[in-house]
């Protein structure tokens, strides 16, 4: 390789792991957070449906 070109791009390969790590950590952490929020939301919605049913059943039992 032309030594001047090698000099121009001298920092590219050494910096690559840091750039890849920065983007990978950011994207992965964001993805994990989104999955956590969405699964938490679904779980809470399911619990809510069960509890609402239980409250309705209890109120129905009381009124009868």
């Amino acid at each position, binding site marked *: 390789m032309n030594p001047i070109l090698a*000099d*121009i791009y001298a920092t590219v390969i050494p910096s690559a792991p840091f*750039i890849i790590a*920065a*983007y990978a*950590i950011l994207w992965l*952490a964001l993805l994990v957070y989104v999955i956590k929020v*969405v699964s938490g*939301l679904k779980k809470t919605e399911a619990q809510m449906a069960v509890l609402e049913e*239980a409250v309705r059943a209890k109120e129905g039992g009381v009124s009868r």
Partner: protein
Amino acid sequence: MVEKKVRIPEAGQWPDKLALPALAAGAVLTTVGFLMAFLFAAPVNGAALDTPELVNGVMVTHQQLISQKIFYFHMPVAIVSFVMLIFSAYYGIRFLTTREQRFDTCSRVAMELTLLFVIFTMVTGDLWTRFEWGVWWTWEPRLTTYLILMLIVIAYFVMRNSIDDPERRATYASVISLIAFVDVPICFMITRLIPSSVHPVIAREGGMTPDMAATVLVVMIGMMLVAFGLYRLRFREARLAERLQALKDQLED
């Protein structure tokens, strides 16, 4: 005298309908921004070359720095962390003036996202610093004030977990969110007051080139949309959890 009715934020309203589209649009825009950072925005100049070289018809006089590509996400996530903190402090003030717990919920959710984006800023910044300066940490003014901000945000959650009384917890949390908010302008202005080589004032140094500015703008809008979508989803989950607890209490009675 007629008392002014306080509008209380609630889940399930029109902003919730925008949460998933905002998240999807944010994902698309940040992906486009990522591609623009590497394929559209020109690399910045490093050390001067002894002999200039003609590369693809362009006279190159400096080393080409690729590590600067981290900037295209580092700066937008830092700005988003400030914006989320401003929202947290705003809802903290609303709680202190109205004593309505819902505002505390809003403030807590915004602070949670602040912490997330502060961590992103720290991680991306540290990796950049490690390569450019050969150290993981340096006591530079912007880094120090931002570290203080991160510690205040962590203290906010430590405090929340250590107090059981909801009223007292919300009051202290609101005060801490305001203290953290005070650090935002300090953090933002510190490089203007104490010049630093690690964090240059871009506007003072001639601004960004159009390709750099366009890339930052795309990522910034994308990250804002992601933050908005996450805030609405998380707020919806928090409200559902509160209603669930109320139902459990009702059943126990």
